[in-house]
């Protein structure tokens, strides 16, 4: 058939172009049709990617009113003109079959009916009022992945309700690290990979947990001849640029850091001047490190003692242009029981190297300051006084956890305990991206009211009483944000694909009217945008055209630490006050592999972002074609177990069983089994992604680490056995 000669996408585009350009009733041939369609002008509209947290600046190329492709914005600090696979594919989310196209109400398990916005707002408002009346605002919470628009609108709405419990995704990401740096250095410093001479990555993977700039930075450092040590149970693709892969027993990075400190101190390789001027508790710290020799750490980490000496000396001899990279999710983010103390040690070792504020060491960012709405003209609701229902910042629970992040994955448990009654979730898929799906689902469903606002169906949306459909990134304009020394903004590249979907600012503003909070939203999104960029000397119309604009960077600030003591707290009094070790000490992870078990580790792939992209047809096709959902097992162990590459195995923990194929490899520690994160969708009616792969979260219990409350996502032992086809 001749029609088969044209790809469907082009064919449809041609139809649209004909209607627009030729007009119904004109005589045309298929050849003319194609010519018109292909010759249609392409417009380039600035946008920001939304497939991961990097939010890369990109140009959306639109032809015949439809998205064709994207390219990177050169001035954007994350993309630097380049876009990763997720970005190229993800913009087409606007056309995805698994979008939520109407406000929805759950009438039975996995059964939703479309309702009008008015009905949704009305019923949600009525239920919320009942919860507030019966339980008060302390049992209402809000969870999201903070981005410019939702960061402004949702917390304002929650303040109007009186709720203090606002949570980001970080307890399943980087809360261990973030709590630790808050109490150790008072702020987040990042490795100056552009100028460093010697850098150690602990589990952090710049080329798979990537943004285009992190991958480029690692490549550039490699080309510059920087010594890069990658410590990871898995030989990740970051090792392609590393000087050395140091395989480590899962969850024992803390022992390695303790021994590095031991050597720096014992061999006088630390920066005495820096320690004298900028650290508190050095004597206690020094005393505490004495027992942690490399020989001891070797037995804990499975790293040869001489390698530990070499790393410590490499760091010491290259200071201050040497550092332990800060990590992200990594072992210090949310993976192991000892994660918070592990990051305390990352910060302490960097202090011993005296690298804070130095080229090639750890630097604090100093971004230009954005503006905010005029509070007189646009009064904000008063700061809520209600107690938090997730325990963050509360004595006897998680007193040291920062309330800017909270403990998001704990809410289903809190719901089961009756401590939470109503939740609002925006663009966050806790039910699939945190451990223990069964408990999470049960807990969310136990709430009196759960409202999910998202663009597509998710495991979490399935738990909601009401779902409010937001329009896709390609269809909406968002609030501007300051990123490095630029201001950047998403604009709408195409019109609404589904007419019932709305931008978030409209949803929140309209809903506010139903709960008597309209007075706190007496402005337009443009008013907020103008207020944000005003002090930066940028005009909104210009930003809409350029997408990203460089702004003047503030003058560099002298070094300072925003801790209680204004110093780096090698000894942290706040930790002591709450019963935690004030000087980091060895704490083993919960899980140590035995003869028949593996620690189940996971990590990102460069073309996937957890469940955000796991149903993308292009990215899913890659994973299927190249068998990238497979479980990695060390070749020696596989041989002993009679498992061959490609075999189907059953993975089991006390909590769950699952089947997946195996990749037998020399690239993983014998005690670890690696499973890529993101596969194993649990929404039965999804058009893409269901039935492919399994998720590490199935096997891991839902828990909260004692200090910062993070999810301890790699604390699980599994057995693996070959099963018949």
């Amino acid at each position, binding site marked *: 058939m001749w029609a*088969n*000669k044209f790809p*469907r996408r082009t064919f449809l585009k041609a139809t649209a172009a004909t209607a627009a350009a030729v007009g119904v009733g004109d005589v045309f041939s298929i050849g003319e049709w194609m010519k018109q369609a292909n010759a249609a002008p392409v417009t380039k509209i600035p946008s920001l990617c939304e497939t991961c947290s990097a939010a890369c600046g990109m140009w959306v190329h639109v032809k015949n009113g439809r998205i064709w492709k994207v390219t990177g914005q050169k001035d954007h600090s994350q993309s630097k003109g380049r876009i990763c696979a997720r970005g190229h594919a993800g913009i087409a989310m606007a056309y995805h079959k698994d979008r939520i196209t109407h406000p929805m109400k759950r009438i039975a398990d996995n059964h939703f009916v479309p309702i009008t916005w008015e009905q949704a707002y009305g019923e949600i408002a009525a239920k919320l009022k009942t919860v507030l009346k019966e339980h008060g605002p302390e049992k209402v919470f809000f969870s999201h992945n903070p981005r410019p628009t939702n960061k402004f609108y949702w917390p304002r709405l929650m303040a109007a309700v009186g709720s203090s419990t606002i949570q980001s995704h970080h307890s399943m990401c980087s809360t261990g690290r973030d709590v630790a740096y808050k109490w150790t250095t008072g702020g987040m410093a990042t490795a100056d990979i552009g100028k460093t001479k010697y850098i150690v990555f602990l589990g952090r993977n710049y080329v798979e947990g990537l943004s285009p700039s992190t991958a480029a930075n690692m490549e550039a450092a490699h080309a510059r001849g920087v010594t890069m040590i990658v410590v990871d149970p898995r030989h990740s693709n970051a090792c392609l640029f590393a000087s050395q892969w140091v395989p480590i027993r899962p969850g024992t990075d803390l022992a390695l850091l303790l021994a590095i400190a031991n050597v720096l101190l014992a061999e006088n390789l630390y920066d005495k001047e820096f320690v004298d001027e900028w650290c508190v508790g050095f004597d206690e710290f020094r005393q505490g490190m004495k027992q942690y020799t490399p020989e001891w750490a070797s037995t804990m980490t499975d790293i040869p003692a001489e390698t530990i000496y070499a790393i410590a000396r490499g760091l010491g001899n290259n200071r201050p242009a040497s550092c332990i990279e800060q990590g992200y999710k990594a072992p210090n983010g949310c993976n192991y029981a000892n994660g918070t103390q592990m990051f305390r040690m990352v910060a302490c070792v960097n202090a011993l190297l005296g690298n804070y504020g130095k080229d090639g060491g750890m630097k604090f960012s100093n971004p230009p300051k954005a503006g905010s709405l005029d509070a007189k003209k646009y009064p904000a609701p008063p700061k809520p006084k209600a107690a938090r229902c997730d325990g963050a910042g509360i004595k006897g629970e998680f007193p040291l956890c920062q309330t800017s992040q909270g403990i998001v994955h704990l809410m289903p448990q809190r719901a089961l305990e009756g401590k939470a009654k109503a939740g609002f979730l925006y663009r966050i898929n806790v039910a699939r991206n945190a451990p223990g799906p069964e408990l999470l689902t049960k807990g969310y469903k136990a709430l009196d009211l759960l409202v999910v606002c998202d663009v597509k169906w998710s495991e979490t949306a399935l738990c909601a009483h009401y779902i409010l459909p937001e329009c896709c990134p390609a269809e909406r304009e968002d609030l501007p944000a300051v990123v490095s020394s630029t201001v950047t903004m998403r604009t709408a590249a195409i019109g609404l694909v589904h007419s019932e979907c709305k931008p978030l600012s409209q949803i929140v503003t309209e809903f506010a009217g139903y709960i008597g909070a309209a007075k706190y939203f007496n402005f337009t999104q443009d008013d907020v945008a103008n207020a944000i960029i005003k002090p930066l000397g940028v005009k909104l119309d210009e930003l809409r055209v350029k997408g990203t604009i460089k702004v003047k960077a503030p003058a560099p600030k002298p070094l300072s630490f925003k801790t209680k003591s204004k110093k780096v707290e090698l000894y942290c009094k706040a930790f002591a006050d709450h019963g935690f070790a004030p000087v980091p000490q060895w704490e083993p992870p919960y899980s140590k592999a035995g003869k028949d078990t593996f620690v189940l580790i996971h990590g990102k792939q460069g073309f996937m972002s957890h469940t955000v992209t796991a149903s993308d047809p292009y990215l899913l096709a890659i994973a299927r074609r190249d068998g990238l959902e497979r479980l990695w097992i060390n070749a020696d162990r596989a041989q002993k177990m009679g498992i061959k590459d490609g075999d189907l195995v059953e993975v089991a923990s006390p909590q769950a069983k699952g089947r997946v194929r195996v990749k037998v490899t020399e690239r993983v520690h014998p005690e670890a089994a690696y499973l890529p994160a993101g596969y194993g969708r649990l929404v039965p009616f999804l058009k893409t992604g269901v039935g492919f792969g399994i998720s590490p979260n199935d096997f891991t219990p839902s828990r909260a680490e004692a200090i910062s409350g993070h999810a301890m996502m790699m604390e699980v032992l599994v057995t693996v056995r070959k099963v018949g086809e």
Partner: protein
Amino acid sequence: MPRYAMIIDAKKCIGCYACQVACQMQNELGPDNAFIRFEDRETGKYPNPKYVIVPLQCQHCQDAPCVPVCPTTASHKDSNGLTMIDKDKCMGCRRCVAACPYNARTYLKDEGVVQACNLCLSLVKQGEAPACVATCLTKARYFGDLDNPTGEFAKQLAKAKPLRPDFGTRPTLLYII
């Protein structure tokens, strides 16, 4: 006429698939059709494994085996030395697919034709780099003119070699491995 060519530094390839998807979008291909694919190779023993990822696509061979087997002259060499496929002439017999030793040609089932990397000639003619080169996160790809090599392309050219010279097809796509 320029003789366009590409150099791929496989030592810099991180297997992120950005090039593949950028190419699919540029060429309006469906999810299951890609002009770029990857082969990876693991050698050595734990704890000292070696790993390399090699992106593969049409090698634009000077002695292209796909050309003489084409019964309709759809597969041809163009004036820039590129191996191109005239979509209107292709009848989808797939002899070229079988003839290509690099397995770098893609049969588009929906359209009933074979297509392959065209080095984004439409972009190149506008003075832009091919989509895969422009988006490569680690700058592992270089595009240039063999007769007039300049800049980074010229620098890399000395190190670059055909992937499998033993196939005897004299590719213009060159690799650093």
